[in-house]
């Protein structure tokens, strides 16, 4: 293998590992703020217990996000120097805004959020929680602005082979940005909803009936049930936006080899790029035309218009189907569970058994979605501006391969430990219940608002 494919694999490994943790921290920050505000409003210590449990998960995820994010900022230089040379005038400032406005906000107030309860006033602690949530969301804003610009570049001009900004408003709010941002923020919300509900279901199955478990469980289930239909709607709009600006990506997502009307919706197939056709195809007649053009004979672009210029079909096709499949499973489970929780006020064991393994379903859907859109951008790194192979650095393949191997091993180990620690924390909390004394500082603090009970 050459340095190009190894560098791509390395970047894919790093960014895949990295994105998992921001996906959690973006929305978990807001969930923590919700817990904190409920506590402030009710004085019910169960909310604060839920806060203390989930702030540990937040800290852990944040740490993993930071360290893998530092890796990314170096990799632009170590592996992809051509990227910054060509579009650095645009990518650079966007990344800088991310660091300046958001990262500092998070890193500074995270200390107060994690260590400051009752060392600073309650109001300041709530404010710090808000600022951390706001900071993570702002990070997502800038990073998605950059990514969307790479997908659908706008507001620049090329001079002597280098991109120069012309209109920053157009660069940030490029055509795919609003859709991608909302889609990703909702993905984060769903990931956290299912993580919170899933780990709470695990506690439930371990015999925990503590009030803090119920509060987190209900929050997670209802949040998931509320967000998933919105996400399906937004995802559809995002797809239509992609059809307009990156039709070759949609052609690959649908594995549609020929531009025509009455295109079926392929449910299952093995796209064969050599023969340029689908094998073992199972399809709904006219389905793709109906979804993408809202009429049975609507014309859907096919891969035949983009020979040599379209992304590899199978990963995009499958990535999209996995994402949609997980989304539908989320819809079914969260609505069924919501019904039981709401109408019966109970959690059937069977649904708890279904929820616990779904704790990380958001990760699967998020990764599958990102693979769809990122592989779908190939062969371009920046659509129409910079091809991926033009940006790779002059590093020996052996070096890239060696470091890739170690990164992969490291990430696998860290992932196992992370999942293990989360399970350990959940089971420990289940065993202790709400009766255990809270840690010293917290206990003293909580005594005050609880005095009236």
């Amino acid at each position: 293998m050459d340095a190009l494919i190894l560098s791509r694999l390395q970047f894919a490994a790093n960014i895949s590992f990295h994105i998992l943790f921001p996906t959690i921290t973006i929305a978990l920050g807001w969930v923590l703020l919700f817990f904190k505000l409920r506590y402030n409003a009710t004085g019910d210590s169960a909310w604060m217990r839920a806060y203390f449990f989930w702030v540990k998960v937040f800290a852990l995820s944040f740490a993993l996000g930071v360290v893998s994010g530092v890796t990314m900022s170096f990799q632009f230089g170590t592996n992809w120097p051509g990227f910054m040379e060509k579009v650095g005038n645009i990518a650079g400032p966007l990344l800088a805004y991310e660091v300046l406005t958001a990262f500092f906000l998070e890193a500074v107030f995270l200390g107060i959020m994690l260590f400051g309860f009752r060392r600073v006033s309650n109001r300041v602690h709530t404010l710090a929680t808000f600022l951390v949530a706001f900071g993570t969301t702002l990070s997502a804003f800038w990073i998605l602005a950059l990514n969307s610009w790479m997908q659908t570049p706008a507001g620049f001009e090329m001079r002597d082979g280098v991109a120069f900004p012309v209109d920053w408003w157009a660069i940030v709010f490029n055509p795919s940005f609003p859709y991608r941002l909302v889609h990703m923020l909702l993905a984060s919300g769903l990931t956290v909803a299912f993580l919170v509900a899933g780990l709470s279901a695990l506690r439930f199955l371990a015999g925990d009936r503590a009030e803090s478990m119920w509060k987190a469980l209900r929050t997670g289930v209802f949040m998931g049930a509320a967000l998933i239909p919105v996400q399906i709607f937004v995802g559809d709009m995002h797809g239509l936006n992609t059809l307009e600006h990156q039709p070759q990506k949609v052609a690959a997502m649908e594995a549609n080899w020929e531009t025509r009307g009455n295109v079926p919706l392929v449910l299952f197939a093995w796209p064969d790029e050599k023969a340029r056709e689908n094998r073992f195809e199972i399809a709904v007649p006219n389905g793709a035309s109906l979804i993408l053009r809202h009429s049975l004979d609507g014309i859907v672009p096919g891969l035949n218009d983009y020979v040599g210029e379209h992304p590899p079909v199978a990963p995009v096709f499958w990535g999209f189907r996995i994402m949609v499949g997980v989304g539908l499973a989320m819809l079914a489970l969260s609505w069924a569970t919501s019904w039981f929780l709401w109408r019966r006020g109970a959690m059937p064991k069977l649904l708890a058994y279904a929820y616990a393994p779904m704790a990380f379903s958001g990760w699967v859907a998020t990764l599958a979605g990102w693979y769809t859109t990122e592989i779908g951008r190939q062969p371009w790194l920046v659509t129409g501006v910079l091809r991926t192979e033009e940006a790779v650095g002059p590093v020996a393949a052996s070096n890239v391969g060696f470091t890739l191997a170690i990164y992969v091993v490291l990430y696998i180990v860290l992932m196992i430990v992370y999942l293990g620690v989360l399970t350990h924390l959940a089971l420990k909390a289940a065993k202790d219940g709400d009766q255990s004394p809270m840690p010293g500082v917290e206990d003293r603090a909580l005594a005050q608002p609880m005095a009236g009970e």
Partner: protein
Amino acid sequence: MTLDWPTLLPLIFAGLMGLAILVYVVLDGFDLGIGILFAASDAHEKDTMIAAIGPFWDANETWLVLAVGLLLVAFPVAHGVILTALYIPVFVLLVGLILRGVAFDFRAKVPVHRKKRWDALFCIGSLAASLAQGYMLGVYVLGLETGLPAIGFGLLVALCLAASYAAMGAAWLIYKTEGDLQRKAVRFLRSALVFTAVGMVAVSLATPFASPRIFEKWFTWPEIALLAPLPIVTGAAFLGLWLLTFRMPAPGDRHAITPFLTLAAIFALGFAGLAYSFYPYVVPDRLTIWEARPRPKASPSSSPARRSCCR
């Protein structure tokens, strides 16, 4: 030299980047150093040491991201040249930072019998990150050479920088703790100070002798007289700190912050020396800060006039 934006902007960026690196070295220096000192402390002391840096390490590391980000934004060409040349040490740095960053959280959250493992990884990660930074500094001052002498020199600086971070860590502990751990930290500081001094002397000597241009900048009249205070003040600071360690901890914990501030000053002085030596180059003797700006493909040596209008 005319003072228009294309001339000034790289200067401002270079200044900001230098500041970010200096702040990073001082701030992350002490928490990396505490990681290194983990090797010589017991379980109870480790908890105290972690508590002393808990709220800070995240923000400290952010300065590294800022420094690299500025390099990336302001000098994309240099960013590529430096980071591809330092591919393996950058990798070691990153793995080290990953290990220590996660160990920091994992050690407090895993079942108790596994805590030791993460303590060890916290120490190893901190050490690896410090050594990698030192190695990069060493290779950088020799102009990104790749020969065996450069590697040897890189390793020497690596050891010395790790020691100076340990000194920073010890100084922070003197400030933040009391009792046995504080007394221990004073002893750590004294030993680490020796290596810090060796490292600074080595870098200070190697820099001018590796580059005739830098030699010129230091050892000609009247520069040599004007610059003389820099090494003299640094030396005095070292000596003062060394003597102070014999009188610490002072009654009433007076001067507890002094070692840390003195070390920070020493770092700043050393950094000022380096900045003077390398200015205006961002890649030693190859790319100046103006050449390393984003630019049209054409001539690398031409002035930076192109990029002015669009910000």
